[in-house]
């Protein structure tokens, strides 16, 4: 009964304890198992095959197909694709000032949203990780996660109602003789910051959780006040987590067009440029060329943050 053992292991067959169920040994399965055990390469190939085909062939392939179309153009009347390679789309993107303006505006919004979310997330995450009791901690995590299930659209629409003229925000600010921002860039920034907040809180919380209390106690023993401990000990340690959260807030804001449509009033962000060209004007080549912009920005960002180890903190 040694079919299950490798030949190079000199083990005696294990005596089965009385009363325990014998493990069924299917010879073919066992042979397959030992083959796999002996050949790590085959195991690796088997593990990698499906995901790699999916990600590289299917996903990257479809991205390549789309970006290849960026070099084409469409007939302005019938909308048919003209498959003649040219740099026209890119030239238009670079030369027309309007696209540069929209791109910079979008970058600004994405950066602002990231900063706002980081500022709000830090105290919340510190409280959750270091101050709250363990039981309360679980409840708090649940409370932070729950809004993720409320539909993105509904949350954006809730903000539309909040910010509408004579809506709750105007009503609340009325006594102070102020009025809400109405629809526009500020509304978009507020709403996006709200939508992506859990995506920033969770990695930062996880990162803070990993900071051992002993380090903090040591820092206090050495005489550092809480603020100094935070600045010199905690912040560098959770920096990858902050960056991980920023990947979400930044990239999600960069491509968003739906929130802009709901609370943006007459504003346009870069996502709208892409959407208006593909969803509305059927101008796939120009939309693909425009899509290069956020993709390039995000790839650059990802390459920069890889060093910080943030990708492991997602």
């Amino acid at each position, binding site marked *: 009964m040694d079919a*299950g053992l490798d030949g190079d292991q000199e083990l005696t067959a294990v005596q089965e304890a009385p009363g325990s169920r014998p493990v069924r040994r299917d010879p073919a399965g066992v042979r397959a198992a030992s083959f796999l055990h002996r050949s790590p390469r085959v195991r690796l190939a088997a593990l990698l095959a499906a995901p790699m085909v999916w990600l590289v062939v299917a996903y990257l392939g479809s991205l390549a197909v789309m970006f290849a179309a960026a070099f084409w153009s469409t007939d302005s009347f019938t909308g048919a694709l003209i498959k003649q390679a040219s740099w026209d789309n890119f030239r238009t993107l670079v030369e027309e000032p309007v696209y540069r303006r929209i791109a910079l505006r979008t970058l600004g919004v994405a950066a602002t949203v990231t900063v706002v979310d980081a500022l709000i997330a830090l105290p919340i995450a510190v409280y959750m990780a270091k101050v709250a009791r363990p039981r309360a901690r679980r409840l708090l995590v649940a409370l932070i996660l729950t809004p993720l299930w409320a539909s*993105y659209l509904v949350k954006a629409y809730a903000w539309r109602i*909040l910010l509408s003229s004579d809506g709750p925000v105007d009503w609340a600010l009325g006594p102070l003789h102020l009025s809400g921002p109405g629809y526009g860039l500020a509304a978009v920034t507020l709403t996006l910051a709200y939508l992506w*907040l859990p995506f920033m809180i969770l990695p930062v919380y996880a990162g803070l959780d990993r900071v051992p209390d002993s380090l903090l106690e040591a820092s206090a023993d050495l005489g550092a006040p809480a603020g100094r401990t935070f600045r010199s000990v905690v912040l560098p340690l959770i920096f990858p987590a902050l960056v991980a959260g920023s990947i979400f807030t930044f990239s*999600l804001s960069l491509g968003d067009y739906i929130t802009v449509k709901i609370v943006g009033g007459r504003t346009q962000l870069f996502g709208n440029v892409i959407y208006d060209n593909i969803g509305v004007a059927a101008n796939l080549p120009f939309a693909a060329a425009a899509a290069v912009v956020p993709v390039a920005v*995000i790839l650059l960002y990802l390459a920069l943050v890889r060093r910080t180890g943030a990708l492991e903190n997602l």
Partner: protein
Amino acid sequence: MILSRRARIALAGAMVVGLAIIYVPLLLVLLNSLNSSRTFGFPPTGLTLEWWRRTLDNAGARSALWTSVKVGLGATALALLLGTCLAFAVQRYRFFGRDVISLLVVLPIALPGIVTGIALNSAFNAGGVPFGYFTVIVAHATFCIVIVYNNILARLRRTGTSLEEASADLGATTFQTFRYVTFPQLRSALVAAAVLAFALSFDEIVVTTFTTAPGLQTLPLWIFDNLFRPNQAPVVNVVAAVLVLLSVLPIWAVLRLSGDETGGRL
């Protein structure tokens, strides 16, 4: 951290304010689902359960919900499979291109949804694939993989290989080791990943818009269609309220299963 009492109170205050910010819009949704005015004037003039009654009859919402559930289950299953395989490969082996994978797997979720949507749409068109459940599930699985991958990777990193080696030393085959040793260790991470992946797929709208067929509406698509319609918007609010209330269940389940994830204490 030794925090002064004042700092603790300040942080607790920040927590309360933060939670308030997060929940006020959601409570507004809940309030509006009861608002007797169709156009959500504020403050509400009266409360009514009329919209809740109407939602129960709404066939469109029900079929959209069911579609979303089916798509979510399919995408989650696929993502679990692919993400776990990938996590194992990356964590347990060294090979050429290993560090690029973490970049590659995060791409579907890092790139704007509209880019992924257009790319998949062009690819499906080029390949002549008919749009329907298949295309939507494929699209969703693509960006759910990273969720599963990250969760399993983190767990594998924590558990190490010693138990598996011991199991092999004791005579278990590869499959047995996986079934009796590895899998139980992964189980809670798999559940947490599945819940997050399902939530992501359930709420996704942009990529879905580009990969669906006419007549095939997931819940977010249905919501988007009805969001501004005067007679339907209250129903949308009710649906949203229900989603929020229901979401407590899976979150609670995940937390029970994940036990004490407080690895921070030495």
